[in-house]
């Protein structure tokens, strides 16, 4: 399923001169882990459509129609509050203009860590709420199961006692884990520092290296943990002391080989410690919580894990799981019952709405009530114990409410207009652009989606298998609990920020960390912005001309970085650019935009090896590559004025291949292959055969002859 799909998006801007039609009917889907490149000149609407995805359109923008679906939500309709959870966190954006996306009076380091710390805090808070909520819901469900005599259900007293035990031992396991994580981070940091120092040893003067070693020793002194480097480890301490002493010798003119060897030793020691098996903090937590008097043996981690798991299963978990399973089954059964009811109600409402025309005098209260009751019954159908959230159902109240509001408002204004009464200035823009069919369609669509989803789930209910549900829920709770204690401290954020800065290619990140944005050159500033966007680990990354101001090496670095992230984290990337050369490296699919419309859409092989639209030809032939010798084919003229978009093909006036019909009628999409389509009349069966310009044919031929191995 597509992670993000944009359907028939239409956006215009209200200006003093009239409405500028910036985006005219744009549709595309992006799969998870895929890169879509949107290529076009400035003013083609590529940035505007992406800003709509981010929910940051300028104030004078009007979304005239369409939808942007992300994980089941329509981003054009959800409230600003809901958007806070998505923007920057799930969907992140790298802006073209770096100066306006960095705060000039705050140091770069602070701007990088700010989001990490805030996000960390928010995550902690959210996990805590989730953890407590889930437990409460679980307890209610288990009690319900007992009341209705489900098999394996436990009595309420036992349930509440069990949950108390669960909370207790999860807490004590978490404490250990938090300590371990902090020490682990320090160890990783030290390893990174040592790598840095070893490089600096070659060229830097001893004094500077000495300073670096001093800095390195600080985190190296904090790595102590039961499971990593024990506090009683005299050998490690001796090594640190030795390095300290040797550093002094080196700074005053000693041999660098000695200190190099010792640093390597320290690094390999820490790496070995980090790679060692981790104890299972969940099971270990239970052993410590339930048997505080027994001393635990930490010498063999594998044995420890096996032993604690055994203890947990025998004493608590197997018994508890039975109860949980009963609770889950009860909750599921109830929700299916409610779902059936909700579907019936929704279908009735749909029928009622499509048959009735809204009358303000009669229907005002009835409509409000309808929204309330429908939303209530949809929400009652949600299985609160289900881990995969059905976002259509969860957001039904807001989306349906908003759709109804728009419809009602439009109807009222229509009545007003029909009666010839005055329309307030604020409403006039809306009143002029009423599209009743669209509003009605939106209402029906929101209902249909929930009905469809619920029906699917009801169908599946017969074959539902509960054997693993209980374990899944316990795992979920465990996960939330460990996130609850995962605190992003200032030093951790700083280390991560410095690593990120290094990753995006900022030299001397430790020094740069303390500088202001104006002390960075344009390329460096761009990298800071990229680092900030990446710091939140988004699902979708929108890159708005991120490399346009950068030179080739850095550009290649950034593109490689984006590609790598894409692979590692299944990141979905939308890449906006005007440079087709850049896109060949990153894009899986390419959409070429001109004057607010997509004119060609296909995989990157399609677009580069068999371009079909004259505008794509023009873009390709106006840029020299390493073997170009001929005169470039510049595109004459300028992009059209979008105040008065041309009637036919917008590119016709600049197009030397334009047919007569291009000036009269907009071309539809012609499918060239299942993955490739273009909007040009040249593809019509009746059109004359036209060859792309020679410069492109030559290039394509050269590329195919070389089979991808032509390096200048």
């Amino acid at each position, binding site marked *: 399923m597509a992670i993000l799909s944009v359907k028939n998006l239409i956006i215009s801007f209200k200006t003093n001169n009239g409405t500028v039609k910036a985006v005219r009917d744009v549709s595309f889907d992006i799969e998870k882990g895929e890169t879509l490149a949107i290529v076009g000149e400035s003013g083609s609407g590529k940035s505007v459509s992406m800003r709509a995805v981010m929910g940051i359109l300028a104030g004078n923008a009007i979304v005239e129609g369409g939808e942007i679906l992300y994980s089941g939500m329509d981003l054009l309709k959800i409230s600003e509050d809901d958007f806070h959870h998505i923007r920057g966190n799930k969907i992140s954006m790298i802006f073209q203009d770096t100066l306006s996306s960095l705060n000039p009076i705050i140091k770069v380091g602070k701007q990088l860590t700010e989001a990490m710390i805030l996000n960390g805090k928010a995550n902690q808070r959210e996990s805590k709420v989730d953890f407590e909520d889930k437990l409460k819901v679980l307890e209610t469900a288990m009690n319900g199961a007992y009341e209705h005599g489900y098999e394996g259900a436990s009595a309420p007293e036992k349930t509440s006692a069990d949950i108390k035990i669960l909370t207790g031992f999860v807490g004590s396991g978490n404490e250990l884990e938090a300590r371990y994580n902090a020490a682990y981070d320090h160890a990783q940091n030290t390893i990174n520092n040592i790598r840095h120092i070893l*490089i600096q040893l070659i060229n830097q003067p001893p004094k500077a290296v000495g300073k670096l070693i001093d800095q390195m020793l600080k985190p190296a002194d904090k790595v102590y943990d039961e499971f990593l480097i024990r506090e009683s480890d005299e050998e490690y301490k001796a090594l640190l002391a030795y390095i300290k002493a040797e550093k002094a010798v080196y700074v005053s003119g000693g041999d660098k080989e000695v200190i190099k060897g010792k640093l390597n030793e320290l690094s390999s020691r820490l790496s070995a410690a980090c790679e060692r098996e981790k104890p299972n903090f969940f099971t270990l937590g239970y052993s410590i919580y339930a048997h505080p008097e027994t001393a635990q043996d930490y010498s063999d981690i594998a044995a420890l894990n096996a032993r604690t798991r055994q203890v947990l299963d025998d004493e608590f978990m197997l018994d508890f799981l039975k109860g949980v399973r009963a609770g889950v089954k009860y909750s599921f059964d109830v929700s299916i019952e409610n779902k059936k009811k909700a579907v019936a109600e929704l279908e009735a409402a749909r029928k009622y709405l499509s048959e009735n025309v809204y009358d303000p005098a009669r229907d005002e209260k009835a409509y409000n009530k309808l929204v309330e009751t429908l939303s209530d019954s949809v929400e009652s159908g949600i299985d609160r114990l289900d881990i995969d959230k059905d976002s259509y159902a969860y957001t039904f109240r807001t989306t349906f409410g908003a759709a109804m509001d728009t419809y009602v408002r439009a109807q009222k204004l229509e009545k007003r207009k029909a009666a010839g009464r005055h329309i307030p200035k604020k409403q006039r823009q809306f009143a002029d652009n009423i599209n009743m069919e669209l509003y009605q369609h939106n209402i029906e669509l929101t209902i249909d989606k929930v009905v469809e989803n619920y029906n699917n789930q009801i169908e599946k209910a017969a074959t539902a298998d509960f054997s693993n549900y209980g374990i899944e829920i316990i795992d979920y709770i465990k996960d939330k609990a460990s996130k609850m204690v995962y605190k992003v401290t200032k030093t951790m954020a700083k280390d991560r920020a410095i690593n990120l800065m290094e990753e995006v290619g900022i030299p001397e990140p430790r020094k740069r960390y303390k500088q202001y944005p104006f002390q960075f050159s344009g390329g460096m500033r761009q990298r800071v912005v990229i680092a900030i966007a990446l710091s939140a680990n988004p699902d979708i990354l929108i890159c708005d001309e991120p490399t*346009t101001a950068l030179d080739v090496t850095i550009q290649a670095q950034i593109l490689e970085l984006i590609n790598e992230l894409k692979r590692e984290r299944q990141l979905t990337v939308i890449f906006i650019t005007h440079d087709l050369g*850049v896109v*060949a490296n990153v894009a899986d699919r390419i959409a070429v935009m001109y004057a607010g419309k997509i004119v060609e859409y296909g995989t990157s092989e399609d677009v580069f090896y068999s371009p079909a639209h004259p505008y794509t030809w023009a873009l390709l032939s106006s840029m*020299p590559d390493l073997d170009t010798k001929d005169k470039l084919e510049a595109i004459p003229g300028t992009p059209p004025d979008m105040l008065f978009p041309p009637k036919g093909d917008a590119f016709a006036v600049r197009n030397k291949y334009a047919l007569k019909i291009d000036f009269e009628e907009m071309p539809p999409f012609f499918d060239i292959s299942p993955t490739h389509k273009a909007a040009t009349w040249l593809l019509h069966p009746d059109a004359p055969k036209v060859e792309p310009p020679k410069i492109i044919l030559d290039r394509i031929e050269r590329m195919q002859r070389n089979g991808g191995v032509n390096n*200048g």
Partner: protein
Amino acid sequence: MAEEREVLLRVEHLKQYFKLGIGATVKAVDDISFDIKRGEVFGMVGESGCGKTTTGRDIIKLYDITGGDVYFKGYRISSGIKDKKKQLKKLKKEGKTAEAEALAKDIKQAKIDVKKAKKAKVMTGMQMIFQDPSACLNPRMTIREIIAEGLIIAGEKDKEVIDRRVKEVLDMVGLLPEHAERYQHEFSGGQRQRVGIARAMVLNPDLIIADEPISALDVSIQAQVINLLNELRNKMGLTIMFIAHDLSVVKYFSDRIAVMYYGRMVELAETEELFAHPFHPYTRALLSAIPLPDPNYEKQRKRIIYESALEHDYSEQQPTFREIRPGHFVLCNDAEERKFRAEDNG
């Protein structure tokens, strides 16, 4: 062929340091030397912050240079007196009187030379095109005023001559005479850059310093500007110093290319030669990073990564600029020179 041409611009040991707050200095340009011959296009590439723009601005005297000399049309137009005085002090301290005397003489001569160059008004023969056309044109002046300003400053008083000349250059860059009365906001990006070029052309310069003239423009317009510059160069025999970071464009446009890295010039050669036999590891890294509109090639591409600290060992000998092949200069020390020569022969 290249040897026969007259040297139009000579830069010797140019240094440009900027002071940063307390004590720290940034060596934006550190001891670079090159010639530009009449009629050639001299490309300059390098990553952002490597000093290519600063070099351009030094040559046209937008900055006072810290050290070295710049000669234009045989005149010494600027000289880094400060740095020379510092050197003089050092020489005197070390007791090298003969060298000190020669340097003192040079300083005296430099002062006279720079004054002479000023009197001869050679600087009007050098003009600059800037990166962002909308930022470098005054929004409150008409195009006519913008273009004529240079002429007026150069001492032209006859209105008719000015009008005729403005019309000529507008025609030269492909704009219409009636455009002269408009303001810059009435133009598209490509037309604005044409105005920038017209302003540079109005004094019939010998050398144009084009500082990233196309990177702020739309793709479809970039080609228009490149074609225009190409035309002007073929028709009028212009000499252009072309500063850019887009290597495909630089290759398409330039006769010789200089690669800069961290304020040093690391390689200088004729275009074909540079692309065929890059020596310096940074140049190789740069060439391997050029994106091409070819997905299959891009998927297989192996980029060479350059890390200066690992690549060179300059602890024993500092590198200097040496000629490895005829007309092909590389920044290297003895050991590296041997290595490059072996590579060249083998």
